[in-house]
Structure formats: C-alpha cells, structure tokens
C-alpha cells in the first residue's frame, strides 16, 4: 500500500472537498426545485469513498448505491457530466436518462449507482469473477449501506466471493440508519463486520470518519484482493450530514449522546488537521484546494444549467445493443 505522500494527500483532500461541495450545492439546488426526483446525499461520509478509491485505478471496478455521488467522484467521474446527469440533461454521464440514482461510467470502472438496495453485491461478484478469469490484478469494491446488509444478496454475494476467492472488497458504510430505521434494530448482529465469520473471511469495524483509518484498512484489504487471497468485509462507522433523501425530516436522529457526537464530526476538517500535523500540506495549500474545488463545482452547475435537455428520440434509444 502506498503511503499518503503530498501528492496523494492533495488528491484526497480535493476529492473529499469535491464531494462535500457537490452535495451541499445539490442540496441547495434541490431545495430551489430545479432538480427533480429522489436525491440521496453523501455529505459526511466522504472519508470512506475517498479513502477506498485512493487505492484504485480506472481498471478497478466499483459498485455503488443510491447514495452514489461520492463514489462517483472518488472514482474519477467527470463533475460536469455528473451534475448534468442529475439535472436530466443530454450532456449528462448517462445522457440524462439515469439521473442521480443511476449515474455510471463504465470507462472509469464505475458500474453504477443503484436504485436497488443491495443491487451491487452480485454485480461486484461478477466483475470480480471476470477479473479472476482474465487473470488481471484488478479489484472490485462493493460499497453498501448498513441497511443493505440485511438483503439476501449480501449473503449470496459475500459467500460467492469467499468460495471463489474473488478480488472483491465489501465496504460497508454504516451510517447508523437505513432511511429511518436504525442499524441496531434491523441487524440481528451488533456489528456488520462480525458477519465475516459466516464466510471465513476477514472482517473489521473501523472509524469511517477517519480518512487515514479507512485508507489503511482499505489498502490492506485491496492488496490482499490483488494478491488473490480473496474478499474482506470492512465496516466503516459514519453518519450522513443530511437526511436519507432530500425532503426527509430526520426525526429519528439523536438529539444528544454518542450519535450526536458522531454527527458533529467533520471528516474533512479532521483530515486537514492530520495533514497539518504531519506537515503534508500547509494551511495555504489546504485553502487553495478548497477554493479550486468550489470553483469546479460552480462550473459544473453552470455546465449543467446551460446544457440542453435530451432529444425526444432518446426515449427509444439505448434499449437493445446493436
């Protein structure tokens, strides 16, 4: 696993900032009524997508969730194309036909946000099978929520990856809730990590607000996968800044106590502190990154707004291949 050097640190901070800004802006625009449909924001969870994808190349695959903007950005998808997609514009990554819940860019190894909770498990297994069959050293990361861990597909997918020793890393984003249902209600097990025992693979619960912790655990798991030693299950404890989707009243969120403390943490600020203390980036450099990121997101919004809506014939296109 590569250490976090200056270059890496900049990429990580920039990526986390991009995600945060993208989501904050999306929140603002959604509230103004310009974006339709269901939008699930990733703000607060940046350390996970970023800490994991820092180890990946375009040749590696990821599967994502309904809360997919963060994974997309961390996997290197074009910000303009993403924003245009959310607006339903012709210039979107999916020509405006997918929307927030289905952003994808296979060329970047991003196999799609997914409107089906748990939909990514078998797809990740298939991509892993492909990697193994073709004898590549590429890996697959399957992001999934705490709620998704109760779908049958979790069980089938992890088991298949285990028996076939596939290069798949299962990254659970445990943000305490599935919609309005807490993880401690929906899971028989106290942790999701302990479910690794059911497949004889390594499982670990870790602080998902801590970029460095995620970076290191993911690095190890991905190395293991590249070496052909099979899958790992990582449970990253985190929290989302916004509601389940835009419009959620969030009545279920804690008003005090440990959960509230978790909610108060800012993974980007924490990473900034780390960078300063390690002497990896200066205050000025950090401010510059923040600045660039804001500008790029603003540009993405302009791009999206200026883009045309899809041609009517697009309705009938892209159904069958050939």
């Amino acid at each position, binding site marked *: 696993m590569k250490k976090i050097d200056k270059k890496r640190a900049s990429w990580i901070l920039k990526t986390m900032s991009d995600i945060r800004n993208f989501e904050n802006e999306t929140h603002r625009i959604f509230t103004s009524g310009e974006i339709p449909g269901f939008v699930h924001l990733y703000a607060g969870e940046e350390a996970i997508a970023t800490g994991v994808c820092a180890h990946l190349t375009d040749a590696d695959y990821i599967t994502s969730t309904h809360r997919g903007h963060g994974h997309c950005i961390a996997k290197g998808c074009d910000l303009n194309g993403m924003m245009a997609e959310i607006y339903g514009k012709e210039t979107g990554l999916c020509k405006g036909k997918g929307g927030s819940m289905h952003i994808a860019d296979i060329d970047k190894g991003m196999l799609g946000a997914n*409107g089906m909770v748990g939909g990514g498990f078998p797809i990740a297994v298939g991509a892993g099978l492909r990697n193994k069959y073709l004898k590549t050293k590429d890996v697959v990361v399957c992001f999934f929520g705490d709620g998704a861990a*109760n779908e*049958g597909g979790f069980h089938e997918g992890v088991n298949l990856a285990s028996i076939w020793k596939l290069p798949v890393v299962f990254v659970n984003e445990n943000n305490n809730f599935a919609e*309005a249902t807490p993880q401690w*209600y929906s899971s028989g097990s106290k942790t999701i990590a302990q479910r690794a025992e059911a497949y004889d693979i390594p499982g670990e619960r870790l602080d998902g607000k801590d970029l460095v912790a995620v970076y290191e655990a993911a690095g190890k798991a991905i190395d293991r996968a590249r070496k052909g030693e099979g899958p790992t299950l990582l449970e990253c404890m985190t929290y989302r800044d916004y509601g389940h989707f835009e419009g959620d009243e969030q009545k279920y969120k804690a008003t005090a106590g440990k959960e509230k403390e978790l909610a108060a943490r800012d993974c980007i600020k924490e990473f900034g502190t780390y960078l300063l203390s390690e002497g990896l980036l200066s205050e000025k450099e950090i401010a510059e990154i923040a600045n660039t990121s804001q500008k790029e997101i603003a540009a993405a919004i302009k791009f999206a707004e200026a883009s045309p809506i899809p041609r*009517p014939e697009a309705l009938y296109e892209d159904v069958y291949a050939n």
Partner: protein
Amino acid sequence: MTRNITFMKAINEALEQAMEKDERVILLGEDIAGGAEVAHLEKKNEDAWGGVFGVTKGLMPKFGRERVIDTPISEMGYMGAAVGAAATGLRPVPELMFNDFIGFCLDTILAQGSKMRYMFGGKAKIPMTIRTCHGAGASAAAQHSGSYYGLLGAIPAVKVVVPATPYDAKGLLLAAIEDDNIVVFSEDKTLYGLKGEVPEEYYKVEIGKAKVKKEGTDLTIVTIGKMLYVALEVAEQLANENISVEVIDLITVAPWDQATIIASVKKTGRLVIIDEANPHNNTATDIASVIGNQAFDYLDGPIKCVCAPHTPVPFATNLEQLYLPNAERVLETAAELIDDLKN
C-alpha cells in the same frame, strides 16, 4: 358522512378501519412506521416516517409496533413472512415500497403464496394484501417508476387491483383485506395528492367489477389507474366533435371484468385500452385478445392499445412525459377508429 380527502388519506383510513375491525390484520414494511427503537420517538409513541410517502402515518401510534411492523430491507424475508403468517391465520398487509422491488420477493408470491392452496389440495388459504406503488411521472427514474401490476396479474390465484380515485382506493383496500386470497393493491404514486369524496364509514368496492365512469355510444375506452384521467380528457375533447365516448375504469386488473367491457363494446363497436405498463404481455393486450375473441362480431374496427413504449422509464422530465400515454396519443389512436364518425 362524506368528506373531500386525498387518495393517500383514503388508503390510510382504510388501513385504520381494517385494523380496528379485525385484530388479525397487521402491517409489515420498510419504515411504514420508522424510527423503531429510537428512544425519543418511542417515548412520544411517534412514527418517524409512516412510509416513504406517508401513507401509513399515524397507524403505529394508534396500533403499536406489534401491528405496524418496521422490517429490515429484506423483501423476500418479510413478504414470505406475510405468506407464512397468512397461511397460519393472520391477515397481513405487507407493503412493497415500490413495485419495482418485485424481483427480490417474487418467489414468495409466484411459487409459494399463490400455489399453496392448489398444491395442498385446498387446505390452505392465504388472505394477504400486498400494498405497493407503481407508475412514472415522479422523476423517480428506471428502477422506481415501473408498472408491474400486469406481471403480477398473470399469476393464477393472485388478484390485482389498481384504484384511480380516493373513493375506490378506500373501498377496494377494505375489500382486499377481507378477501381470502392474495390481493395486490397497486397505488399510483402520482395520485397520492388527488382529492375526492370519500365516506367516513367502512365500505367495500367490489373486486372484479369495472366501473363505467362516463357513458357513451361511439367509442369505449378502458383504463387502468390514472389513465382514467387521460381517457376523461379525451372524452371531453371528442365530445366537442360530437363523438360520444364511454369510459370504463377497469379497477381490477386480475381477474378483470369481461362482462362490463363486452356490454360496452356491443354498444360502441370500438375499443381503446390505455395501460401505462410496457406494451407486451400486459393487461391491455390481454383485454384486446379476449374481447377480440368474445366480441368479434360487434367490432367496427381493431381494438387499439395505448401503452408505454418498450423501454425502461427515463429520468429526464421531458422524456418521462413522452413515455407516459397521454391524451394526444390516445386521440391519434382513436382517430384511426372513428374517422368515419367525424363530419
């Protein structure tokens, strides 16, 4: 007494009255209450959500978590549990948040629930009502906008109803819950805000009976769910051209009401069916096939189906609007049948 309430409220009220009437009725689904075991909510006996659209709001506070059961995201598990509970004497009403999730739990309906009675030689009954929602128009994109009532309607022993008005929603849901079979109750998510006259008291709308919403003599239009409003718009426009349209709200998609449609076609000789489902192997084509056979001698022209195209539902608003059958398309289609009537 009758009030003007929303489609959503009508459904909520039906659930409430069904639960009051019969202790065996329980609800199951993802966040149909919401916030289970969240301390400050439990203390106030409050539901955090009441379903993703708020349809079941207030039922948990009234009936408790024993009867309004939040489930993990385990569609196969809780839908199958509803089958098991129904087979052993309860009358569960599971909610499948979007009908698009049917692929996760179809086995429990297709291979288990719907076949038990037959396979067991008549010994079992499965009195359960699956509430779900369908339909495009909410920018919910390809995986949350489909219409699969026709797919479910193809399964023997499964009844499927699709209400179009608050009145029918309440009465049909009460009838469904009293029915001893699996009934799929499919709600169009874009109708939740629609208001209409609904009696306060408990009443039932008959499953299997279509409703003539407007009488006419020249052309019959059969509709499913919100397509009713497309047909009514078409009827109004054609009335301006002195063409008299009979509009039939199918209401029950399986088993659908042959008699009412045949009677109408005998009168009008022309039939258009509007179905928001994808165009093949759906309810519209089924009706066209059966009526084409049964009423062949009364038809003045071919039976026409107006459906969604054979594509997934696109996200972009303009494409989604094109996807939905609308008055324009129905008028074009009707024109092929009624050209001779125009003057």
